[in-house]
């Protein structure tokens, strides 16, 4: 994976930049010792590492504004960072950049149940947003598997999803407003507690822009009343195609489950060893969850089970208790960790039309044999968002490269059947160079033109999202002008 060569001129001015940042931030908020900046050398895409020149941890929007203004004046690239859980390298530094971490900004600013929103600083973790409203039986819907650790800032940057977004949508569907700082230090507010934009939907544009348009410091989020109850059912099949057909039939029946999750043999075994959820031994496992009162759940599950029975499941089991449900979900949400205990792995995130599921799974199986690397599949089947996990050995020379080539083929396949490169993890550096497989240059130009408006000098997280050759002229324009 290529990254731009660090700008020697910036590296030479490290002392000056440091001094200026120290003038606007408390002493402990500026990290410059190479031993300490190493803590920021990577995110959850650990195959790539590079310590930043400096890291800063502001505690207020004003401090964020000061940092960005100074970096703008000095021409220093800034890489924003939430909790550093990106699987796509969204927070990967360059040697000449300043990492701007929002972890110290984690307060709840306002909770309003009558209008069903919460306003938080964006360093707050996803799960602790729900934690702040749980007492009143409310919750924040998007639930990425990393929700214990990941920050709202990163959720907004990547437009994060989760297992339950089949019913509740992803971050962009639950974000009402932001306060954000542009690269020149100006602070803007978009949206608020009311619905929809009065002009262009800039909020929709910010969400998922991977920290390239501004640094969001405060977010107004929609909160929802918890359903009376929820219950998953496990369905095992001895054929992927049949499981895929069952998903399609459930959706067509008019029932909208909150989640339909899929796991294949390798994942089932890994997760079962990890969580002891009682997953059956089968080729394809579906976890289907519905919500409502006890009677409503019984009713919906009866309909779903009737559909499943038509597909000859090898196992069909409703969760019998809250404890069992928790175990079932623990197993699913630990899938990445459980696979990680078996070997190093690379997690993909392509989305496909649900109807292409059998074809894509078959092709992934063939590619796995060709490359000689095992693949586990776990994904959100209701919306076609796949997470193939390719196992490899990072210590074996050539294995990472082989794994990347294999991953790229899978993602291209996702695009070719009518899907996309990434459903919820973001492009980052990981899928940056595959963007031209999904988008023509004119499509990428339209997106880059938006960045030109928000960040004309291309200083915010500049080497991400777009293929390096496509963005090069923009990234180097300022340098060339000097």
């Amino acid at each position, binding site marked *: 994976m290529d990254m731009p060569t660090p700008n020697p001129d910036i590296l030479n001015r490290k002392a000056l930049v440091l001094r200026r940042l120290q003038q606007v931030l408390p002493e402990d908020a500026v990290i410059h010792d190479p031993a300490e900046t190493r803590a920021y050398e990577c995110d959850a895409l650990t195959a790539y590492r590079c310590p930043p020149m400096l890291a800063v941890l502001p505690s207020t929007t004003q401090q964020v504004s000061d940092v960005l203004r100074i970096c703008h004046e000095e021409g220093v690239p800034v890489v924003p960072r939430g909790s550093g859980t990106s699987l796509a390298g969204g927070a990967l530094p360059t040697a000449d950049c300043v990492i701007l971490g929002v972890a110290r900004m984690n307060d709840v600013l306002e909770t309003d149940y*009558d209008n069903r929103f919460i306003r938080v600083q964006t360093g707050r973790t996803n799960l602790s947003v729900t934690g702040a409203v749980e007492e009143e039986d409310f919750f924040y819907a998007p639930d990425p598997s990393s929700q214990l650790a990941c920050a709202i800032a990163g959720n907004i940057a990547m437009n994060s999803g989760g297992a339950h977004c089949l019913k509740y949508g992803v971050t962009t569907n639950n974000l009402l407003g932001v306060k954000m700082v542009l690269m020149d230090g100006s602070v803007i507010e978009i949206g608020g507690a009311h619905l929809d934009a009065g002009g262009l939907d800039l909020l*929709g544009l910010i969400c998922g822009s991977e920290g390239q348009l501004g640094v969001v410091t405060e977010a107004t989020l929609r909160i929802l*009343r918890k359903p*009376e109850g929820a219950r998953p059912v496990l369905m095992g099949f001895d054929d992927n195609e049949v499981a895929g057909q069952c998903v399609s039939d459930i959706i067509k029946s008019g029932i909208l489950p909150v989640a339909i999750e899929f796991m294949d043999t390798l994942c089932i075994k890994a997760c079962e060893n990890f969580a002891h959820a009682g997953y059956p031994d089968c080729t394809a496992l579906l976890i289907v969850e519905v919500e409502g009162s006890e009677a409503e759940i019984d009713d919906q599950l009866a309909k779903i089970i009737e559909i499943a029975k038509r597909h000859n499941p090898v196992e069909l089991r409703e969760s019998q208790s809250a404890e069992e449900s928790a175990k079932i979900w623990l197993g699913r949400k630990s899938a990445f960790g459980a696979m990680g205990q078996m070997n190093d792995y690379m997690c993909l995130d392509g989305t496909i039309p649900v109807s292409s599921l059998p074809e894509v799974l078959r092709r992934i199986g063939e590619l796995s044999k060709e490359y000689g690397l095992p693949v586990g599949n776990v994904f*959100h089947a209701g919306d076609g968002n796949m997470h193939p996990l390719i196992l490899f050995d990072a210590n074996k020379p050539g294995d990472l490269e082989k794994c990347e080539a294999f991953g790229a083929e899978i993602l291209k396949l996702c695009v070719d059947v009518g899907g996309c490169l990434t459903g919820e993890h973001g492009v980052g550096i990981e899928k940056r160079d595959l963007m031209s497989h999904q988008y023509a240059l004119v499509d990428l130009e339209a997106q880059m033109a938006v960045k030109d*408006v928000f960040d004309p000098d291309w200083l915010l997280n500049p080497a991400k999202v777009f293929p390096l050759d496509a963005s090069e002229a923009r990234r180097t324009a300022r340098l060339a002008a000097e």
Partner: protein
Amino acid sequence: MKPETEAELAEMVAGLQHPVRIVGGGTRGVPGPEAEINTSGLNGITLYEPGALTLVAQAGTPVAEIEAALDAEGQQLAFEPMDHRGLLGTKAEPTIGGVVAANISGPRRIQSGACRDFLLGVRYVDGTGQVVKNGGRVMKNVTGYDLVKLMAGSWGTLGVLTEVSLKVLPKPETVATLAVQVADIDSAVQAMSVGLNSPFQVSGAAYDPQDGNAYLRVEGFQDSVSYRLKQLTPLLAKIGQVSEVADPIATWRAIRDVQAFHSHGGDVWRISVKPTDAPEISERLSADQTLFDWGGGLIWARVPQGTDLRARLGRFDGHATLVRATEETVKAFGRFQPEPMALQALTRGIRQRFDPRGVFNPGLMG
């Protein structure tokens, strides 16, 4: 100009010598230059997969055609787009491109989301005549910037939509609605809040001051709907007398299309606020007639012709759009709420890059 294909449209735009108005069915009252590009020739559903909850259609496809196709499979556009014809006195067929370009959402917006939340992908011709695509036809997609949301509600100022792909949802088996007799807007907001804050999945919450009823809609499978009505009734009875509406489909169509205003003259404004601000805001409006949707968060106001409603409102958190008025009034006050300077600069910058010659709907949005 009425292109029959995307390529023809692209060629027309590239050759434009003067600004044009972008029109689908022309039912939403968008003013603009005499010359127009009409997209109704780009017609037809290109793909519909009920099992994947996805529909792709050319921008000029009539909404009615799409709704009929969905209905045949027991599905629907969950964001419940309003039909503006009754309110504006326009004719012709509303198109799906128009719905998307104006981000038109109805009462279910409060629960399911807006049009923009159901829009999965777009193709459009930009101001230089280039065909651009963004998003796709899958439900989860974070590949690159989300220009899909940007195009929704951009009113044709950034490009001419040629194709849209939408997430659709199952149509509920049963629809039921409770009417709560309330004394005033304060009690109405309270009643709607009780419904929306309950776990009973209220999919519509509106208030018509004329009949003094707050309406709360519940949808789904029959048994589930009966159960939820039973649970909601005692909660609402603390606020006012509760009864069940005889024809809920007609009730919500009337609310969606603001039917109460149809036979009355005057300007019509649409104001988005946070629901608990509705009582205070509606007092500032001193309108001839109001209708409240989205739990109080959407206020429809009818005022005498030429009233500067934004002056009456003063500063407030939200936005007011002028939906029906004479051309002079629209010119005088602007259709959309003026934005803070910083946002105006961003909007202008984006527009300048998407339509550098300024040929699409000039003067419409900032």
